Protein backbone atom coordinates (compact mmCIF):
# COMPACT_ATOMS: atom_id res chain seq x y z
CA UNK A 1 0.00 0.00 0.00
CA UNK A 2 1.42 3.37 -0.89
CA UNK A 3 1.37 6.39 1.28
CA UNK A 4 -0.60 9.52 0.51
CA UNK A 5 1.03 12.55 -0.98
CA UNK A 6 1.18 15.95 0.62
CA UNK A 7 -1.91 18.18 0.47
CA UNK A 8 -2.98 18.84 -3.10
CA UNK A 9 -4.04 22.21 -4.33
CA UNK A 10 -7.53 21.27 -5.43
CA UNK A 11 -9.47 24.51 -5.62
CA UNK A 12 -12.80 24.48 -3.91
CA UNK A 13 -15.35 23.51 -6.60
CA UNK A 14 -18.18 25.91 -7.27
CA UNK A 15 -21.36 25.27 -5.35
CA UNK A 16 -24.33 23.59 -6.93
CA UNK A 17 -26.40 25.89 -9.03
CA UNK A 18 -29.73 24.95 -10.51
CA UNK A 19 -28.06 22.92 -13.22
CA UNK A 20 -24.39 22.24 -13.83
CA UNK A 21 -23.70 21.15 -17.40
CA UNK A 22 -20.53 19.19 -16.61
CA UNK A 23 -22.16 17.29 -13.74
CA UNK A 24 -25.26 16.58 -15.84
CA UNK A 25 -23.34 15.19 -18.80
CA UNK A 26 -20.99 13.16 -16.62
CA UNK A 27 -24.03 11.62 -14.92
CA UNK A 28 -25.57 10.79 -18.30
CA UNK A 29 -22.27 9.26 -19.43
CA UNK A 30 -22.12 7.19 -16.24
CA UNK A 31 -25.66 5.85 -16.74
CA UNK A 32 -24.84 4.89 -20.34
CA UNK A 33 -21.56 3.30 -19.21
CA UNK A 34 -23.49 1.18 -16.71
CA UNK A 35 -25.82 0.07 -19.51
CA UNK A 36 -22.86 -0.79 -21.73
CA UNK A 37 -21.87 -3.44 -19.21
CA UNK A 38 -25.34 -4.90 -19.70
CA UNK A 39 -25.69 -5.56 -23.45
CA UNK A 40 -28.70 -7.79 -23.00
CA UNK A 41 -30.78 -4.91 -21.62
CA UNK A 42 -29.74 -2.71 -24.53
CA UNK A 43 -30.68 -5.44 -27.02
CA UNK A 44 -34.08 -5.95 -25.36
CA UNK A 45 -34.78 -2.21 -25.29
CA UNK A 46 -33.97 -1.75 -28.95
CA UNK A 47 -35.30 -4.96 -30.46
CA UNK A 48 -38.54 -5.71 -28.60
CA UNK A 49 -40.46 -2.70 -30.05
CA UNK A 50 -39.31 -3.66 -33.54
CA UNK A 51 -40.43 -7.27 -33.07
CA UNK A 52 -43.81 -6.07 -31.73
CA UNK A 53 -44.36 -3.81 -34.75
CA UNK A 54 -43.40 -6.64 -37.05
CA UNK A 55 -45.88 -8.93 -35.31
CA UNK A 56 -48.59 -6.31 -35.45
CA UNK A 57 -48.07 -5.77 -39.17
CA UNK A 58 -48.87 -9.43 -39.88
CA UNK A 59 -51.63 -9.66 -37.28
CA UNK A 60 -53.45 -7.04 -39.39
CA UNK A 61 -52.27 -8.62 -42.63
CA UNK A 62 -55.65 -8.30 -44.31
CA UNK A 63 -56.31 -4.81 -43.01
CA UNK A 64 -53.38 -2.41 -43.60
CA UNK A 65 -55.52 0.60 -42.62
CA UNK A 66 -55.79 -0.71 -39.03
CA UNK A 67 -52.04 -1.24 -38.95
CA UNK A 68 -51.56 2.40 -39.94
CA UNK A 69 -53.70 3.61 -37.04
CA UNK A 70 -52.43 1.30 -34.34
CA UNK A 71 -48.85 1.22 -35.62
CA UNK A 72 -48.49 4.99 -35.46
CA UNK A 73 -49.93 5.10 -31.93
CA UNK A 74 -47.62 2.32 -30.81
CA UNK A 75 -44.59 4.18 -32.12
CA UNK A 76 -45.42 6.69 -29.39
CA UNK A 77 -46.33 4.20 -26.70
CA UNK A 78 -43.31 1.86 -26.91
CA UNK A 79 -40.71 4.43 -25.89
CA UNK A 80 -42.93 5.55 -23.02
CA UNK A 81 -43.28 2.03 -21.60
CA UNK A 82 -39.63 1.04 -22.06
CA UNK A 83 -38.29 4.21 -20.54
CA UNK A 84 -40.75 3.97 -17.66
CA UNK A 85 -39.53 0.48 -16.79
CA UNK A 86 -35.84 1.16 -17.22
CA UNK A 87 -35.87 4.43 -15.30
CA UNK A 88 -37.97 3.19 -12.41
CA UNK A 89 -35.66 0.21 -11.85
CA UNK A 90 -32.46 2.21 -12.38
CA UNK A 91 -33.40 4.96 -9.94
CA UNK A 92 -34.73 2.45 -7.45
CA UNK A 93 -31.33 0.74 -7.56
CA UNK A 94 -29.69 4.09 -7.02
CA UNK A 95 -31.88 4.65 -3.97
CA UNK A 96 -31.39 1.21 -2.41
CA UNK A 97 -27.65 0.83 -3.11
CA UNK A 98 -26.78 3.93 -1.09
CA UNK A 99 -25.23 5.66 -4.11
CA UNK A 100 -28.06 8.20 -4.16
CA UNK A 101 -27.37 9.15 -0.53
CA UNK A 102 -23.68 9.40 -1.35
CA UNK A 103 -24.31 11.59 -4.40
CA UNK A 104 -26.63 13.90 -2.49
CA UNK A 105 -23.98 14.30 0.22
CA UNK A 106 -21.72 15.54 -2.60
CA UNK A 107 -22.08 18.82 -4.48
CA UNK A 108 -24.47 17.28 -7.03
CA UNK A 109 -27.72 19.15 -7.65
CA UNK A 110 -30.91 17.12 -7.80
CA UNK A 111 -31.55 18.73 -11.18
CA UNK A 112 -28.17 17.50 -12.42
CA UNK A 113 -29.02 13.93 -11.47
CA UNK A 114 -32.48 13.98 -13.04
CA UNK A 115 -31.34 15.78 -16.18
CA UNK A 116 -28.47 13.29 -16.42
CA UNK A 117 -30.87 10.36 -16.32
CA UNK A 118 -33.23 12.05 -18.78
CA UNK A 119 -30.33 12.75 -21.14
CA UNK A 120 -28.97 9.19 -21.00
CA UNK A 121 -32.30 7.45 -21.46
CA UNK A 122 -33.39 10.12 -23.96
CA UNK A 123 -30.39 9.20 -26.12
CA UNK A 124 -31.37 5.58 -25.97
CA UNK A 125 -34.97 6.51 -26.73
CA UNK A 126 -33.85 8.35 -29.88
CA UNK A 127 -32.08 5.21 -31.11
CA UNK A 128 -35.04 3.02 -30.20
CA UNK A 129 -37.57 5.34 -31.84
CA UNK A 130 -35.43 5.79 -34.95
CA UNK A 131 -35.17 2.01 -35.37
CA UNK A 132 -38.89 1.42 -34.79
CA UNK A 133 -39.99 4.34 -36.98
CA UNK A 134 -37.61 3.37 -39.78
CA UNK A 135 -38.77 -0.25 -39.70
CA UNK A 136 -42.45 0.74 -39.69
CA UNK A 137 -42.15 3.28 -42.49
CA UNK A 138 -39.80 1.61 -44.90
CA UNK A 139 -40.17 -2.10 -44.31
CA UNK A 140 -43.66 -2.61 -42.94
CA UNK A 141 -45.35 -0.10 -45.22
CA UNK A 142 -46.79 2.15 -42.50
CA UNK A 143 -48.60 4.86 -44.45
CA UNK A 144 -47.98 8.25 -42.84
CA UNK A 145 -49.06 11.51 -44.47
CA UNK A 146 -46.86 13.81 -42.39
CA UNK A 147 -43.11 13.97 -41.85
CA UNK A 148 -41.35 11.03 -40.15
CA UNK A 149 -39.35 13.63 -38.20
CA UNK A 150 -42.53 14.68 -36.43
CA UNK A 151 -43.21 11.04 -35.52
CA UNK A 152 -39.71 10.89 -34.07
CA UNK A 153 -40.27 14.10 -32.14
CA UNK A 154 -43.43 12.76 -30.49
CA UNK A 155 -41.70 9.46 -29.77
CA UNK A 156 -38.89 11.35 -28.05
CA UNK A 157 -41.28 13.42 -25.96
CA UNK A 158 -43.07 10.21 -24.98
CA UNK A 159 -39.76 8.69 -23.93
CA UNK A 160 -39.09 11.73 -21.79
CA UNK A 161 -42.53 11.35 -20.22
CA UNK A 162 -41.80 7.67 -19.52
CA UNK A 163 -38.49 8.62 -17.89
CA UNK A 164 -40.25 11.21 -15.76
CA UNK A 165 -43.01 8.84 -14.64
CA UNK A 166 -40.50 6.08 -13.88
CA UNK A 167 -38.39 8.40 -11.78
CA UNK A 168 -41.42 9.59 -9.88
CA UNK A 169 -42.90 6.18 -9.04
CA UNK A 170 -39.51 4.79 -8.00
CA UNK A 171 -39.87 6.97 -4.91
CA UNK A 172 -42.91 4.93 -3.87
CA UNK A 173 -41.45 1.51 -4.57
CA UNK A 174 -39.48 -0.24 -1.85
CA UNK A 175 -38.30 -3.07 -4.08
CA UNK A 176 -37.91 -4.06 -7.73
CA UNK A 177 -41.05 -6.20 -7.35
CA UNK A 178 -43.10 -3.16 -6.49
CA UNK A 179 -41.49 -1.04 -9.18
CA UNK A 180 -42.49 -3.52 -11.88
CA UNK A 181 -46.05 -3.64 -10.49
CA UNK A 182 -46.30 0.11 -10.95
CA UNK A 183 -46.22 -0.46 -14.69
CA UNK A 184 -49.72 -1.97 -14.91
CA UNK A 185 -50.92 0.54 -12.32
CA UNK A 186 -49.64 3.67 -14.06
CA UNK A 187 -49.38 2.67 -17.72
CA UNK A 188 -52.28 0.26 -18.41
CA UNK A 189 -55.14 2.65 -17.55
CA UNK A 190 -53.58 5.20 -19.86
CA UNK A 191 -53.17 2.54 -22.53
CA UNK A 192 -56.88 1.65 -22.34
CA UNK A 193 -58.03 5.25 -22.36
CA UNK A 194 -55.59 6.82 -24.82
CA UNK A 195 -57.69 6.09 -27.89
CA UNK A 196 -55.64 3.14 -29.10
CA UNK A 197 -58.55 0.66 -28.97
CA UNK A 198 -61.41 2.98 -29.76
CA UNK A 199 -61.61 6.73 -30.48
CA UNK A 200 -61.80 8.67 -27.24
CA UNK A 201 -65.08 10.42 -28.16
CA UNK A 202 -66.77 7.00 -28.39
CA UNK A 203 -66.06 6.26 -24.73
CA UNK A 204 -68.40 6.79 -21.80
CA UNK A 205 -68.29 10.56 -21.06
CA UNK A 206 -66.77 9.91 -17.63
CA UNK A 207 -63.95 7.89 -19.17
CA UNK A 208 -63.48 10.46 -21.91
CA UNK A 209 -63.11 13.13 -19.24
CA UNK A 210 -60.47 11.05 -17.48
CA UNK A 211 -58.67 10.41 -20.75
CA UNK A 212 -58.55 14.17 -21.29
CA UNK A 213 -56.25 14.59 -18.31
CA UNK A 214 -53.95 11.63 -19.02
CA UNK A 215 -50.79 12.56 -20.91
CA UNK A 216 -50.65 9.40 -23.04
CA UNK A 217 -53.90 10.47 -24.76
CA UNK A 218 -52.10 13.48 -26.19
CA UNK A 219 -49.13 11.36 -27.21
CA UNK A 220 -51.45 9.18 -29.30
CA UNK A 221 -53.42 12.18 -30.62
CA UNK A 222 -50.17 13.77 -31.73
CA UNK A 223 -49.15 10.62 -33.59
CA UNK A 224 -52.55 10.52 -35.31
CA UNK A 225 -52.18 14.16 -36.41
CA UNK A 226 -48.93 13.25 -38.15
CA UNK A 227 -50.63 10.21 -39.63
CA UNK A 228 -53.41 12.23 -41.26
CA UNK A 229 -51.96 15.68 -42.06
CA UNK A 230 -49.02 16.74 -44.21
CA UNK A 231 -48.25 19.87 -42.21
CA UNK A 232 -47.59 20.53 -38.58
CA UNK A 233 -51.14 21.32 -37.42
CA UNK A 234 -52.10 23.51 -34.49
CA UNK A 235 -53.46 20.39 -32.78
CA UNK A 236 -50.12 18.68 -33.20
CA UNK A 237 -48.29 21.58 -31.59
CA UNK A 238 -50.80 21.58 -28.72
CA UNK A 239 -50.44 17.81 -28.20
CA UNK A 240 -46.65 17.97 -28.29
CA UNK A 241 -46.59 20.86 -25.82
CA UNK A 242 -48.93 19.04 -23.44
CA UNK A 243 -46.77 15.89 -23.47
CA UNK A 244 -43.61 17.95 -22.96
CA UNK A 245 -45.26 19.99 -20.21
CA UNK A 246 -46.42 16.85 -18.40
CA UNK A 247 -42.94 15.36 -18.66
CA UNK A 248 -41.37 18.47 -17.12
CA UNK A 249 -44.00 18.63 -14.39
CA UNK A 250 -43.47 14.99 -13.41
CA UNK A 251 -39.68 15.45 -13.57
CA UNK A 252 -40.12 18.30 -11.11
CA UNK A 253 -42.22 16.10 -8.84
CA UNK A 254 -39.54 13.41 -9.19
CA UNK A 255 -36.88 15.90 -8.07
CA UNK A 256 -38.96 16.66 -4.99
CA UNK A 257 -38.83 12.97 -4.02
CA UNK A 258 -35.02 13.05 -3.85
CA UNK A 259 -34.30 14.03 -0.27
CA UNK A 260 -30.89 14.96 1.01
CA UNK A 261 -32.02 14.21 4.54
CA UNK A 262 -33.95 11.03 5.28
CA UNK A 263 -35.29 9.51 8.45
Amino acid at each position, binding site marked *: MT*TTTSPTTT*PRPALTGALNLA*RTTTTAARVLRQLRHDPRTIALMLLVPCVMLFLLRYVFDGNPRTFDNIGASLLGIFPLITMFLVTSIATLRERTSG*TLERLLAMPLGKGDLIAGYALAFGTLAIIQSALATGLALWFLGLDVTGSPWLLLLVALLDALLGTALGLFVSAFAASEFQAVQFMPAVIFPQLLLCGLFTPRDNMHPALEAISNVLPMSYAVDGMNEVLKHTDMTANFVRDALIVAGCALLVLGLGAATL*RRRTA
Partner: protein
Amino acid sequence: MMNYSSVRSDPPDETAIRAETVNVVRGTRHVLRDLDFTVPRGQITGLLGPSGCGKTTLMRAIVGTQAKVTGTLDILGRPAGHPTLRTRIGYVTQAPSVYDDLTVRQNLTYFAEILDPGHAAADRRHDNVTRTIADVDLTSHADALAGNLSGGQRSRVSLAVALLGTPELLVLDEPTVGLDPVLRRDLWNLFHDIAASRGATLLISSHVTDEAERCHRLLLMREGRILADDTPDALRTRTHSETVEAAFLHLVDEATAAARAKETTR
Protein backbone atom coordinates in the same frame (compact mmCIF):
# COMPACT_ATOMS: atom_id res chain seq x y z
CA MET B 1 2.39 25.45 -3.61
CA MET B 2 -0.62 26.83 -1.88
CA ASN B 3 -1.18 25.74 1.66
CA TYR B 4 -4.38 23.77 2.06
CA SER B 5 -5.45 25.58 5.19
CA SER B 6 -5.19 28.96 3.50
CA VAL B 7 -7.97 27.93 1.11
CA ARG B 8 -10.31 27.48 4.05
CA SER B 9 -12.64 30.43 4.22
CA ASP B 10 -13.58 30.37 7.89
CA PRO B 11 -11.15 31.20 10.69
CA PRO B 12 -9.05 28.26 11.90
CA ASP B 13 -10.72 26.48 14.76
CA GLU B 14 -9.34 23.55 16.71
CA THR B 15 -12.73 21.87 16.82
CA ALA B 16 -13.96 19.79 13.88
CA ILE B 17 -17.28 18.70 15.38
CA ARG B 18 -19.16 20.45 18.16
CA ALA B 19 -22.38 18.87 19.47
CA GLU B 20 -24.63 20.46 22.07
CA THR B 21 -27.77 18.67 23.25
CA VAL B 22 -28.11 16.79 19.97
CA ASN B 23 -31.25 14.65 19.82
CA VAL B 24 -32.62 12.43 17.07
CA VAL B 25 -36.00 10.75 17.17
CA ARG B 26 -36.79 8.18 14.50
CA GLY B 27 -40.46 7.28 14.57
CA THR B 28 -41.14 6.42 18.20
CA ARG B 29 -37.50 5.63 19.01
CA HIS B 30 -35.32 8.21 20.73
CA VAL B 31 -32.08 7.22 18.98
CA LEU B 32 -29.72 9.95 20.21
CA ARG B 33 -30.23 11.55 23.63
CA ASP B 34 -28.73 14.92 24.56
CA LEU B 35 -25.31 14.35 23.07
CA ASP B 36 -22.62 16.87 24.12
CA PHE B 37 -19.13 16.38 22.79
CA THR B 38 -16.41 17.90 20.66
CA VAL B 39 -14.08 16.23 18.18
CA PRO B 40 -10.69 17.94 17.72
CA ARG B 41 -9.27 18.63 14.26
CA GLY B 42 -6.43 16.61 12.78
CA GLN B 43 -6.98 13.55 14.95
CA ILE B 44 -8.54 10.13 14.68
CA THR B 45 -11.56 9.78 16.91
CA GLY B 46 -13.02 6.32 17.36
CA LEU B 47 -16.74 5.91 17.84
CA LEU B 48 -17.37 2.73 19.78
CA GLY B 49 -20.42 0.99 21.05
CA PRO B 50 -22.59 -2.09 20.64
CA SER B 51 -24.62 -2.38 17.45
CA GLY B 52 -27.88 -0.44 17.59
CA CYS B 53 -26.49 2.16 20.00
CA GLY B 54 -26.85 5.02 17.49
CA LYS B 55 -23.38 5.19 15.90
CA THR B 56 -24.66 5.26 12.33
CA THR B 57 -27.42 7.76 13.16
CA LEU B 58 -24.84 10.07 14.73
CA MET B 59 -22.63 9.79 11.67
CA ARG B 60 -25.55 10.50 9.36
CA ALA B 61 -26.42 13.56 11.45
CA ILE B 62 -22.82 14.78 11.13
CA VAL B 63 -22.69 14.41 7.34
CA GLY B 64 -26.15 15.96 7.05
CA THR B 65 -28.23 13.09 5.68
CA GLN B 66 -30.21 12.44 8.87
CA ALA B 67 -33.58 14.14 9.15
CA LYS B 68 -35.02 15.55 12.39
CA VAL B 69 -31.81 16.42 14.21
CA THR B 70 -32.37 18.91 17.03
CA GLY B 71 -29.82 20.78 19.11
CA THR B 72 -26.59 22.37 17.88
CA LEU B 73 -24.33 20.37 15.60
CA ASP B 74 -21.52 22.38 14.01
CA ILE B 75 -19.16 20.72 11.56
CA LEU B 76 -15.95 22.54 10.54
CA GLY B 77 -17.54 25.75 11.78
CA ARG B 78 -20.82 25.37 9.85
CA PRO B 79 -24.14 23.82 10.82
CA ALA B 80 -24.33 20.15 9.75
CA GLY B 81 -25.77 19.71 6.27
CA HIS B 82 -24.61 23.16 5.07
CA PRO B 83 -24.08 23.04 1.27
CA THR B 84 -20.47 24.28 1.54
CA LEU B 85 -19.65 21.22 3.63
CA ARG B 86 -20.44 18.79 0.81
CA THR B 87 -16.98 19.00 -0.74
CA ARG B 88 -15.23 19.09 2.63
CA ILE B 89 -16.62 15.87 4.11
CA GLY B 90 -16.05 12.31 2.92
CA TYR B 91 -18.55 9.73 4.16
CA VAL B 92 -18.39 5.96 3.85
CA THR B 93 -21.52 4.04 4.73
CA GLN B 94 -21.35 0.60 6.30
CA ALA B 95 -22.66 -1.14 3.18
CA PRO B 96 -20.46 -0.27 0.19
CA SER B 97 -22.26 2.32 -1.92
CA VAL B 98 -20.72 2.00 -5.36
CA TYR B 99 -22.05 1.05 -8.78
CA ASP B 100 -21.69 -2.71 -9.20
CA ASP B 101 -21.98 -2.45 -12.98
CA LEU B 102 -19.02 -0.09 -13.33
CA THR B 103 -15.32 -0.88 -12.95
CA VAL B 104 -13.34 0.42 -9.97
CA ARG B 105 -11.78 3.16 -12.08
CA GLN B 106 -15.12 4.13 -13.70
CA ASN B 107 -16.73 4.41 -10.27
CA LEU B 108 -14.01 6.68 -8.95
CA THR B 109 -13.83 8.74 -12.13
CA TYR B 110 -17.55 9.45 -11.96
CA PHE B 111 -17.47 10.57 -8.33
CA ALA B 112 -14.32 12.62 -9.02
CA GLU B 113 -16.15 14.38 -11.86
CA ILE B 114 -18.98 15.26 -9.49
CA LEU B 115 -16.54 16.68 -6.93
CA ASP B 116 -14.29 18.48 -9.38
CA PRO B 117 -16.11 18.93 -12.70
CA GLY B 118 -14.92 20.40 -15.98
CA HIS B 119 -12.43 19.62 -18.77
CA ALA B 120 -9.71 21.76 -17.22
CA ALA B 121 -9.55 19.46 -14.21
CA ALA B 122 -9.23 16.22 -16.23
CA ASP B 123 -5.52 15.65 -15.53
CA ARG B 124 -5.86 16.46 -11.86
CA ARG B 125 -8.82 14.07 -11.61
CA HIS B 126 -6.91 11.30 -13.36
CA ASP B 127 -3.97 11.62 -10.94
CA ASN B 128 -6.33 11.83 -7.99
CA VAL B 129 -8.19 8.66 -9.05
CA THR B 130 -4.97 6.72 -9.69
CA ARG B 131 -3.50 7.76 -6.33
CA THR B 132 -6.70 6.89 -4.49
CA ILE B 133 -6.90 3.43 -6.08
CA ALA B 134 -3.29 2.86 -4.96
CA ASP B 135 -4.13 4.11 -1.44
CA VAL B 136 -6.71 1.36 -0.98
CA ASP B 137 -4.47 -1.21 -2.67
CA LEU B 138 -6.74 -1.96 -5.63
CA THR B 139 -4.40 -1.03 -8.51
CA SER B 140 -4.41 -4.60 -9.82
CA HIS B 141 -8.24 -4.59 -9.82
CA ALA B 142 -8.75 -1.11 -11.28
CA ASP B 143 -10.48 -2.45 -14.39
CA ALA B 144 -12.60 -5.11 -12.68
CA LEU B 145 -16.33 -4.57 -12.27
CA ALA B 146 -17.13 -3.62 -8.68
CA GLY B 147 -19.85 -6.29 -8.63
CA ASN B 148 -17.26 -9.00 -9.31
CA LEU B 149 -15.02 -8.02 -6.38
CA SER B 150 -15.01 -9.64 -2.96
CA GLY B 151 -16.84 -7.98 -0.08
CA GLY B 152 -13.67 -6.50 1.38
CA GLN B 153 -12.56 -5.18 -2.00
CA ARG B 154 -15.93 -3.53 -2.63
CA SER B 155 -15.83 -1.78 0.73
CA ARG B 156 -12.38 -0.48 -0.19
CA VAL B 157 -13.79 0.95 -3.44
CA SER B 158 -16.41 2.69 -1.31
CA LEU B 159 -13.64 4.00 0.97
CA ALA B 160 -11.65 5.20 -2.03
CA VAL B 161 -14.61 7.34 -3.16
CA ALA B 162 -14.51 9.13 0.19
CA LEU B 163 -10.75 9.73 -0.13
CA LEU B 164 -11.19 11.59 -3.42
CA GLY B 165 -10.98 15.35 -3.28
CA THR B 166 -8.91 15.39 -0.06
CA PRO B 167 -11.76 16.00 2.42
CA GLU B 168 -11.04 17.79 5.71
CA LEU B 169 -13.34 15.47 7.64
CA LEU B 170 -13.67 11.77 6.93
CA VAL B 171 -16.58 9.93 8.50
CA LEU B 172 -16.11 6.18 8.17
CA ASP B 173 -18.77 3.73 9.33
CA GLU B 174 -17.05 0.45 10.21
CA PRO B 175 -14.55 0.63 7.33
CA THR B 176 -12.59 -2.48 8.30
CA VAL B 177 -15.41 -4.98 8.79
CA GLY B 178 -14.68 -8.28 7.06
CA LEU B 179 -11.10 -7.41 6.16
CA ASP B 180 -8.12 -9.61 6.94
CA PRO B 181 -5.64 -8.47 9.63
CA VAL B 182 -2.95 -7.40 7.15
CA LEU B 183 -5.32 -5.18 5.22
CA ARG B 184 -6.78 -3.79 8.43
CA ARG B 185 -3.34 -2.81 9.65
CA ASP B 186 -2.54 -1.20 6.28
CA LEU B 187 -5.78 0.77 6.29
CA TRP B 188 -5.16 2.02 9.82
CA ASN B 189 -1.69 3.11 8.71
CA LEU B 190 -3.37 4.94 5.85
CA PHE B 191 -5.82 6.63 8.26
CA HIS B 192 -2.94 7.83 10.46
CA ASP B 193 -1.10 9.01 7.40
CA ILE B 194 -4.13 10.99 6.22
CA ALA B 195 -4.52 12.60 9.63
CA ALA B 196 -0.80 13.42 9.89
CA SER B 197 0.01 14.57 6.35
CA ARG B 198 -3.21 16.34 5.43
CA GLY B 199 -4.27 17.45 8.88
CA ALA B 200 -7.60 15.78 8.22
CA THR B 201 -10.01 14.78 10.97
CA LEU B 202 -11.25 11.20 10.99
CA LEU B 203 -14.27 9.85 12.81
CA ILE B 204 -14.25 6.07 12.59
CA SER B 205 -16.86 3.77 14.05
CA SER B 206 -15.98 0.25 15.00
CA HIS B 207 -17.03 -2.49 17.31
CA VAL B 208 -13.62 -4.12 17.16
CA THR B 209 -12.10 -2.79 20.34
CA ASP B 210 -8.47 -3.57 19.46
CA GLU B 211 -8.81 -0.90 16.76
CA ALA B 212 -9.74 1.55 19.50
CA GLU B 213 -6.15 1.43 20.75
CA ARG B 214 -5.08 3.04 17.49
CA CYS B 215 -7.31 6.11 17.89
CA HIS B 216 -6.20 9.41 19.40
CA ARG B 217 -9.52 9.84 21.15
CA LEU B 218 -12.54 7.67 21.82
CA LEU B 219 -16.24 8.29 22.07
CA LEU B 220 -17.96 5.39 23.80
CA MET B 221 -21.67 5.16 23.10
CA ARG B 222 -24.42 3.11 24.63
CA GLU B 223 -28.18 3.32 24.05
CA GLY B 224 -28.00 6.71 22.35
CA ARG B 225 -25.82 8.37 24.98
CA ILE B 226 -22.12 9.18 25.18
CA LEU B 227 -20.66 7.04 27.95
CA ALA B 228 -17.14 8.42 27.78
CA ASP B 229 -15.13 10.92 25.73
CA ASP B 230 -11.41 10.58 26.37
CA THR B 231 -8.07 9.29 25.14
CA PRO B 232 -7.53 5.51 25.26
CA ASP B 233 -4.83 5.94 27.93
CA ALA B 234 -7.00 8.09 30.16
CA LEU B 235 -9.86 5.63 29.83
CA ARG B 236 -7.69 2.72 30.89
CA THR B 237 -6.24 4.64 33.80
CA ARG B 238 -9.62 5.88 34.97
CA THR B 239 -11.15 2.41 34.99
CA HIS B 240 -7.96 0.62 36.13
CA SER B 241 -8.21 -1.61 33.06
CA GLU B 242 -5.59 -3.26 30.87
CA THR B 243 -7.37 -2.72 27.57
CA VAL B 244 -9.93 -0.36 26.06
CA GLU B 245 -12.27 -3.32 25.80
CA ALA B 246 -12.09 -3.90 29.55
CA ALA B 247 -12.52 -0.17 30.15
CA PHE B 248 -15.58 -0.12 27.94
CA LEU B 249 -17.14 -3.13 29.70
CA HIS B 250 -16.39 -1.52 33.05
CA LEU B 251 -18.17 1.68 32.01
CA VAL B 252 -21.14 -0.25 30.60
CA ASP B 253 -21.53 -2.19 33.85
CA GLU B 254 -21.25 1.04 35.83
CA ALA B 255 -23.95 2.68 33.70
CA THR B 256 -26.23 -0.36 33.96
CA ALA B 257 -25.80 -0.43 37.76
CA ALA B 258 -26.54 3.29 37.97
CA ALA B 259 -29.67 2.85 35.84
CA ARG B 260 -30.82 -0.03 38.04
CA ALA B 261 -30.22 1.96 41.23
CA LYS B 262 -32.33 4.75 39.77
CA GLU B 263 -35.13 2.27 39.02
CA THR B 264 -35.23 0.89 42.58
CA THR B 265 -35.23 4.29 44.29
CA ARG B 266 -38.25 5.33 42.24
